[in-house]
């Protein structure tokens, strides 16, 4: 029960947050400015997620080998590599660096 209560609380809160737009707005349309903002939400959230994932709380998780791997994946994708292959390049780069440093 010590574990179940927090798990249920977080699960229900997540459901409510995911459904909050329709529950609060119903079928009312967003004003044009809000539509413009929502159009930019995807790239902004992605940029934020990458930053937060690499940095961690107070930037204590920052790891240059991980940053290099992510950078290699980005360069490979920019050079038209398929998405999965680009990520594999990135993972392999970081794994090789860590192997050499071990």
């Amino acid at each position, binding site marked *: 029960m010590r574990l179940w209560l927090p798990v249920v609380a977080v699960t229900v809160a997540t459901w409510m947050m995911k459904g909050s737009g329709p529950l609060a707005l119903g079928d009312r349309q967003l004003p044009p400015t809000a539509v413009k903002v929502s159009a930019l939400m995807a790239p902004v959230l992605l940029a*934020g997620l990458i930053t937060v994932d690499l940095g961690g709380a107070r930037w204590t998780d920052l790891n240059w080998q991980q940053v290099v791997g992510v950078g290699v994946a980005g360069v490979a994708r920019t050079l038209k590599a398929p998405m999965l292959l680009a990520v594999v390049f990135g993972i392999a780069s970081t794994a090789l660096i860590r192997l050499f440093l071990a």
Partner: protein
Amino acid sequence: MAAVSGGDQREAFVDGVRQGAGPGAAIFVLALAYGAAASVAGWGLAVPLVFSALGFSGSAQFTLLTTLSSGTAVAAVTAAVLINARYVVMSVALNDSLQGGRVHRAVQAQALADASFVVAHRGDGRFDIPRLIGASVPQWLCWVTGTAVGLLAAPSAHLLNAVGADVTFPAFFLMLALDEVRKSRRAIVAALLGAAIAAALLFVTTPGNALLGATAGALIGAIHGNPERNRRGEQS
């Protein structure tokens, strides 16, 4: 609103499944780490599995797992809920594209996941809901399966680190971000602003709050790219 045929919806759903497979692979690796960490924390099998199946939120699940062992249950739940506050913003953005009554729309919105939100984005503030749901299917399957494998195999954090597993998640998000910023100059500006805001906020607040703060980049980007405002600025 133009009627969308069942065939088009099926096609969009299948396309979503296909596009969700890549992020799903990244999520599987993350779920392995979550399952392994839950096993080490003594959570047993049922709680983490049910949590992954019903909660389907990596950031909140990791937050609860790490904070519950070091603080009170109320503080741990609050931290886990706050890290998901971005879903409120995403849900509002999604609302115009959802169909049906209030409750039906809220049920459809349960398919929200970070990568699915991006995959479903048409580029004009509208979202393709069958594609959103399709993209979430492989991610959900990978998240639950990965949690189960992580719980049973319990790979060490050292092993996951050595094989570069920590690169998977941010690298996949970078792939999606590169596709997004190709759509417009405004998207590039907004993404850079979002990253800069998150980077600055990480020094003073939790990652969840930093992520929520980053969404201000969309607001600033929209104002920056408003032709009417820019024209007025040039005249003054």
